[in-house]
């Protein structure tokens, strides 16, 4: 299968613009010159050891890489008897998520391109915070587009971006979520492309973004692969990640793509359930289509209009998914399953209580996925050893405390329930 997929080369180094039937550049002609320029600078940077050195130095001295892996035995008991669970701790990165890996890489490219302004979209705010951080670090002007609904859900992150010197523009059209923020960022980019770089935050969009963003995140999997080998003496039986646009998942999957014995699982936001229609599960409830510059799986109606997505997690609330994920799905190299809001929030609570780690609600979808895999995973151990699940903890939950507090009824005192006459409470 690998040879067929990558034309004989390793899957981990597959280059765009196409991933099987997916990817491409479905954008206005006005953007093509900028995409070509970006690709040229990116390829030059890849061939220039000083670029890798500079990025590595920033990772080590600014982001705090390598991020550790943590075994979570008390949480693992809820996954299944004898299953070992390790978390890749991207939540410990500076700014609180994996997003900083990609942002620093792109920001260094922006400097090489001689542009002075960056724009970005953000859903949960993690990518916006990371972009605002890199812009401050490298003295770039920064505008962040965020759906108005998300500015309400993630008010703390809006304040963080503004403290870092970014201008946050609430988007008031459409569903006022991540999809609409990307539309506005694209409009800004078309108008200002000569001076502005669109610092896209995930592995979607037109070529070269899916490939480039993956490459900036593959450090996650490369570190985790070595760390699991050191801790356990073997590769994990499965790698588990949440999938919105799909950048954290692609970052950790990449190092394992050419290890066919390692199962790869992506968990999408099943929201209120697939049958409710209120979800963001593109593989369970979508079909191939084009949005935001790439052909991939997409939530759409029979006319090709984009359907509204839903998730308790702003970062997973997106109707499409990175094209490389679509390719891995169709070829069977990775499996994608939905996790409901309820399941994710239960896993969120569980990790807080059992391990003292408050995860991002996005990452809680991966944790809930691990719990879903529990029974299957018990049969995966080889040679009598316990199966190992490696879960990417893509971000921490500081930004989600208000959402979680509301979900669990911690913000308001519990209503006083009075007993009817004769009723015992």
């Amino acid at each position, binding site marked *: 299968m690998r040879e067929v997929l990558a034309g004989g080369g390793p899957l981990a180094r597959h280059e765009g613009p196409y991933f099987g039937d997916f990817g*491409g*550049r*479905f*954008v*206005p*002609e*006005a*953007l*093509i*010159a*900028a995409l070509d320029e970006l690709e040229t600078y990116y390829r030059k940077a890849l061939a220039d050891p000083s670029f890798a050195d500079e990025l590595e130095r920033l990772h080590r001295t600014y982001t705090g890489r390598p991020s550790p892996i943590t075994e979570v035995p008390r949480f693992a008991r809820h996954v299944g008897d004898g299953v070992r669970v390790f978390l890749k701790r991207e939540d410990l990165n500076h700014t609180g998520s994996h997003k900083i890996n990609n942002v620093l890489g792109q920001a260094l490219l922006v400097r090489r391109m001689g542009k002075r302004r960056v724009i970005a979209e953000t859903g949960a705010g993690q990518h916006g915070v990371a972009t605002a951080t890199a812009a401050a670090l490298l003295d770039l002007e920064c505008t962040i587009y965020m759906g108005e609904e998300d500015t309400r859900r993630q008010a703390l992150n809006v304040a963080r971006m503004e403290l870092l010197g970014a201008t946050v523009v609430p988007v008031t*059209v*459409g569903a006022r979520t991540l*999809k609409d923020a990307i*539309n506005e960022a*694209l*409009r800004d980019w*078309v*108008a*200002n*492309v*000569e001076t502005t770089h669109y610092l896209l935050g995930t592995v979607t969009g037109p070529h070269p973004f899916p490939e480039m963003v993956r490459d900036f995140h593959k450090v996650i999997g490369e570190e985790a692969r070595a760390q699991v080998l050191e801790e356990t003496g073997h590769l994990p039986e499965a790698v588990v990640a949440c999938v919105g646009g799909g950048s954290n998942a692609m970052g950790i999957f990449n190092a394992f793509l050419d290890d066919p014995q390692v199962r790869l699982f992506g968990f999408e936001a099943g929201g209120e359930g697939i049958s409710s229609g209120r979800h963001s599960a593109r593989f369970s409830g979508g079909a191939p*289509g*084009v*949005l*935001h*510059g790439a*052909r991939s799986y*997409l939530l*759409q109606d*029979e*006319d*090709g*209009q*984009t359907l509204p997505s839903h998730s308790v997690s702003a970062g997973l609330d997106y109707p499409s998914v990175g094209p490389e994920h679509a390719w891995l799905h169709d070829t069977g190299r990775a499996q994608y399953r939905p996790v409901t809001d309820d399941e994710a929030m239960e896993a969120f609570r569980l990790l807080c209580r059992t391990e003292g780690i408050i995860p991002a609600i996005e990452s809680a979808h991966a944790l809930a996925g691990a719990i879903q895999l529990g029974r299957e995973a018990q049969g995966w151990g080889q040679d009598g050893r316990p199966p190992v699940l490696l879960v990417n903890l893509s971000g921490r939950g500081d930004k989600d405390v208000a959402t979680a507090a509301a979900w669990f009824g911690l913000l308001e005192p519990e209503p006083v329930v009075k007993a009817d006459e004769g009723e015992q409470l």
Partner: protein
Amino acid sequence: MSVTDVRSATGERLDELAAGPAPRAALVGYLPVGFPTVPGSARAVRTMVDAGVDVVELGIPYTDPVMDGPVIQAAANRALAQGTRVADTLRVAEQVAGAGAPVLVMTYWNIVLRYGVDAFARDLAAAGGAGLITPDLIPDEGAEWLAASDAHGLDRVFLVAPSSTPERLASTVAASRGFVYAASTMGVTGERTTVGDRAEQLVAATRAAGAARVCVGLGVSRPEQAAEVAGYADGVIVGSALVRALLEAPDEASGLTALEGVVRGLADGVRGAVRAPR
């Protein structure tokens, strides 16, 4: 069938205007289907053609119109909220195809992809449509559409931008049929105070790349701008100013009156242009 075997309804109209007793550029008018209503949009197109529009650009309302500014977005959102379907565009195209102007459909690509590229081309041709304008489809990604448009005899209007390289101008010109759409500025649809020098330079560069006909869109809203652009281009494309006339009207009847007035002004601008020698 080769490209040269396919007749171009839009190209013939543009050539006719350029070769007439008073040679002039065409006025190309954009309106979205389903705004203010589906039957209302058909009436608006007829009004527009009667008032002097030479080529119709019929927009399919789309949820994610990244090349459109706020005016067209607002109209498209209203059309979608009222339940406008893609099939309505084919129906309106059929109703207005005989109104006296070739009817091009402007659509974002996922709409066509979902319908089926060949099926859409077949049904558009059957409805009397002249072809497609595709703002988010570049020829590099358009193999299926190139084949379907040849098979069904449809025009394919691709865009060029001030940022297009000479190589891209050449490949886009080679893939286009009918005319090439020159985006006057880097930006999205909407009214602007000036059209700018870059539009004229882009038209010249696109002609140098082999284009027989180049029309200019984005930012044209006033008669004097239309006259200026008609001086060097084969067509002047206007959208937001027409949509605004309908958007700001309290009811359909006054909207049509306002639309007629705006079109007449623009048509006068096009007719009064001083044409540069070709």
